[in-house]
């Protein structure tokens, strides 16, 4: 069978998903072989609130050959070492979910088993005390991770807080320089082939028709192609992830920018604080069945760290995903594919995953169904794993805080999550996913942070002499603190990079560094 390459790719949507896709595709597709066109509507605009990321974005930027200094300057970004969950913990306490591991293995047994053992014996040190990222974040310190796996400085990774609109603009310039054609206008109609139902073109309300061989649906919550045109059904997960609204407002900066995102629990949801160089991004994510828009807005405005810089913007969403992200000649990437809510800043990562898989499986004109199956299989698998991790935060919440949290606490959860929780509860043991984003350090942070302790620990550790274990833990804490003391403040590290006096090493697709 003669291979016939696609000649025209049409990206519908110019939000973060659209421009990330355009940048990645234009980076390796020669416009002589295939023309990429991106259509966006200024009238509709973008969501533009995705501002906290996870470390994988650095791999994406590096793939595009983006200079980190230039990127930080253009997007007003700061560094992120993790998320501080304020008021989510046991009895309303705070905890961190770091981009890094806790402690070191001792005698090939996981660190957390030793910590649990010590805790059972009355040791009062917190799990957080054993994380380099958390200790650095609490001291508002930052340095680039080391490449040598023997070094303590390789036990963490970092991401960015960025201005989503500036990032999209940055990628737009990048893409246009590489031949991406940008068309503005409102798509009024999607034309399909009568026999096979493939999308043939999108028609703008001024009558302009844009034809394509492959269509990438980056139209956000509208899901213009995957849902409206191709009727792929939506799997609703709002019974597990019940927040469905958000109010966002930027405010002025206050003091030095923090090197972490804050997620502050409120009565029917939570509030984010994302420190950028020029402002702080804020938002209140809530469930409209438990709180009115006005109440939510009041809570947000009353809890801003500084004066607001714009009018609050309201957003609505439904958590879940489409049964398929790829159907026929249309691939949905970004919010059009699904949305799991922003608690762990995973949306941009899921966009990235979609882009990588698309690049790997870029179809030719035969559009083999096996490409579609593989794409959908991998994307769905990751969505399900991330979904479970997000639900965990809600499920473990204190039911006495409010009716909303009572609902979350009492709600039935997916079997896959139920089994992971039951295993940890019974034994303190984690089964690692063979492929997946959130691994033991993340699950451990949330379990322990939200007061979900195992009934039993690894019995091997229990046979050990407590004083010896305690001494080892003390040494670890001391060593970590010393290592953090030796690094610059977040602000100084940022300035050093912006002045070209420092640079990072190559990034890896690992949330926790290389150690």
């Amino acid at each position: 069978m003669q291979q016939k390459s696609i000649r025209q790719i049409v990206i519908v949507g110019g939000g973060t998903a659209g421009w990330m896709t355009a940048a990645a595709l234009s980076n390796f597709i020669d416009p002589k072989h295939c023309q990429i066109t991106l259509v966006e509507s200024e009238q509709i605009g973008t969501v533009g609130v995705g501002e906290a990321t996870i470390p994988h974005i650095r791999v994406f930027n590096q793939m595009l050959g983006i200079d980190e200094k230039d990127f930080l300057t253009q997007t007003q970004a700061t560094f992120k070492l993790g998320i501080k969950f304020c008021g989510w913990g046991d009895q309303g306490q705070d905890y961190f979910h770091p981009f890094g591991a806790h402690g070191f293995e001792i005698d090939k047994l996981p660190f957390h088993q030793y910590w649990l053992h010590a805790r059972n014996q009355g040791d009062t040190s917190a799990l957080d005390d054993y994380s380099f990222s958390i200790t650095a974040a609490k001291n508002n310190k930052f340095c680039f991770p080391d490449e040598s796996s023997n070094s303590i400085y390789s036990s963490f990774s970092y991401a960015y807080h960025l201005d989503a609109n500036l990032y999209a603009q940055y990628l737009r310039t990048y893409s246009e320089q590489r031949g991406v054609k940008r068309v503005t206008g409102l798509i009024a109609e999607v034309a399909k082939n009568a026999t096979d139902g493939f999308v043939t073109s999108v028609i703008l309300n001024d009558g302009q028709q844009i034809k394509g061989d492959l269509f990438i649906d980056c139209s956000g919550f509208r899901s213009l192609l995957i849902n409206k045109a191709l009727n792929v059904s939506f799997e609703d997960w709002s019974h597990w992830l019940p927040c469905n609204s958000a109010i966002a407002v930027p405010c002025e900066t206050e003091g030095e920018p923090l090197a972490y995102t804050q997620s502050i629990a409120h009565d029917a949801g939570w509030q984010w604080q994302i420190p950028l160089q020029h402002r702080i991004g804020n938002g209140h994510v809530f469930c409209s069945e438990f709180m009115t828009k006005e109440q939510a807005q009041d809570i947000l405005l009353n809890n801003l760290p500084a004066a607001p810089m714009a009018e609050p913007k309201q957003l609505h969403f439904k958590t879940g995903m489409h049964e398929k992200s790829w159907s026929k000649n249309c691939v949905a990437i970004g919010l059009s594919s699904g949305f799991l809510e922003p608690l762990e800043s995973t949306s941009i990562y899921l966009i990235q995953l979609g882009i990588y898989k698309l690049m790997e499986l870029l179809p030719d004109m035969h559009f083999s169904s096996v490409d579609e199956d593989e794409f959908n299989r991998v994307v769905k698998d990751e969505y399900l794993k991330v979904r479970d991790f997000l639900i965990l935060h809600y499920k473990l919440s204190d039911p006495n805080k409010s009716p909303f949290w009572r609902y979350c606490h009492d709600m039935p959860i997916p079997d896959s999550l139920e089994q992971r929780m039951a295993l940890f509860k019974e034994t303190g043991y984690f089964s690692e996913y063979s492929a997946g984003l959130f691994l033991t350090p993340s699950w451990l942070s949330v379990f322990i942070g939200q007061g979900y302790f195992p009934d039993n620990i690894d019995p091997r550790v229990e046979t050990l002499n407590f004083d010896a274990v305690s001494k080892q833990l003390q040494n670890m804490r001391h060593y970590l603190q010393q290592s953090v003391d030796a690094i610059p403040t977040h602000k100084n590290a940022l300035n050093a990079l912006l002045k070209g006096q420092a640079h990072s090493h190559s990034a890896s697709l690992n949330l926790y560094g290389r150690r």
Partner: protein
Amino acid sequence: MSHLPNNIVVMGNSISAWISSAALLASVGKYGVKVSHCVLDEPATALGNMSVRPEFMDFLRLIGMPEPEFMRSSQATFKLANYFRHWNSETDEFYHAFGEFGTGMANVQFSQAHARLQQIGVSQAVDTYSLGAQMAKSAKFCHPKPDPTSVLSSLSYGWNIDADAYRDSLKHFCISRGLEVIEDALEELELTTSELSIKNVALKSKQILTADLYIDCTEKGLLMQALEQKPHSWQQQIPSCNVATMELPFTGPDAPLTTISAKQDGWLIDITTQQKRCRQYYFAGATAIDPTITQDSKNIVIRQQHYGCMLEPWVANCIAIGNAALTLPGFCVSEVDVSWLGIRQLIDQCPRFPLAKQLIREYNRLVQQRYQRLKDVTCLHLHLADGHQGLLWQQVGQSELSADLVHKIKLYQSRGKLALFDEEVISVNEQMSLLMGLAHTPKQLDLMVQQVPIGQLQNIQQKIEQAIQHAAQTAPHHAAYLKAFCSQ
């Protein structure tokens, strides 16, 4: 509060049994768990030679056995590859190595570059670009180098062992480390009535064994049988067959590989260790053995083999390890590998008392999934064979493939990509090179590779080939290296 089991009894005289005892002794044994071993009077079946995968190095580390000692005691040779002969109409010979092959370039995977050059007929077979394959072909060997800039870092290796010798040596090793060994015959297994579990084991000598945990490494899974567990049959996917094992005249430890040859009525697996050359012949029960296969051989034993696995290898206080849990024809794993897979997971989870329900469920889920993956890779080997008419091959042709494997094959045929599932045991490299070596060139190539000028692709491939040829030529001969290494 749960605690470590007070005692664990390993039952059986198989190689799995001794691997289990050694591993438990070195892991939970060191925390005070009493590990005992009940040999039972099962005849110690002659095992012949066996291949062992690279992951077995972790077992050696666990029990603290240096590699040269292991190799001396198991009469082992090194293994870099499986050498397939006459496997299908397109591939007369193919060296399928454990290690890496080729190197990609920015945005272009090696497999894609290779497929593109193959389409226009200017590429060599994939094993040309694998150092492991080339060293296996020219009977060379050396250990991999950790330095990632060295081509020697692409090597990965396992061993070919005399399983009878290794079983005996492991037994001595365990005894020397204080393992209590009971040599007796089974009288009766007493079960608890409340829930199906083993209460105790009565031996012919009237001794009664009581343990918190029993490891069933008996040939026939006697304990599992008592617990009313039957293996799930894979007859639909891998036809049952006869396996004739025999010893061939020894001509010296030759190349570091296992030879797998397709024959009209079945296939042969030939494995050479330091002093023994063994052959396994898989054929359909109804066919006679071609005399050229058994020529000059001795100690021929024929047994019927069914393939399958325990759906729940851990039931109550009994865990099946090795053949009692999984049987497969030995393309990619042997009984040694299967045993290590099972016992390693058990050690990782750490058995405890009272029995932890969730831990057992998780063990079964993970191990079961891994068994399914191994079965699929085994089926893939069989599926990639063609051009053979005999009864066993006809049965293979009629067998069913799992949905996951069908997807894997389709994706490779269409795109030259590998679909990876959770809990794969066989590495991406191995699966990919198997497909590249034995399957047809994929139909569709990535746009990225089509954009690169052919000359540039050829250039890179030539460089890889040259680097590999040079490293293979300058490497020591396997036999000499082996001798020197084992005398350390």
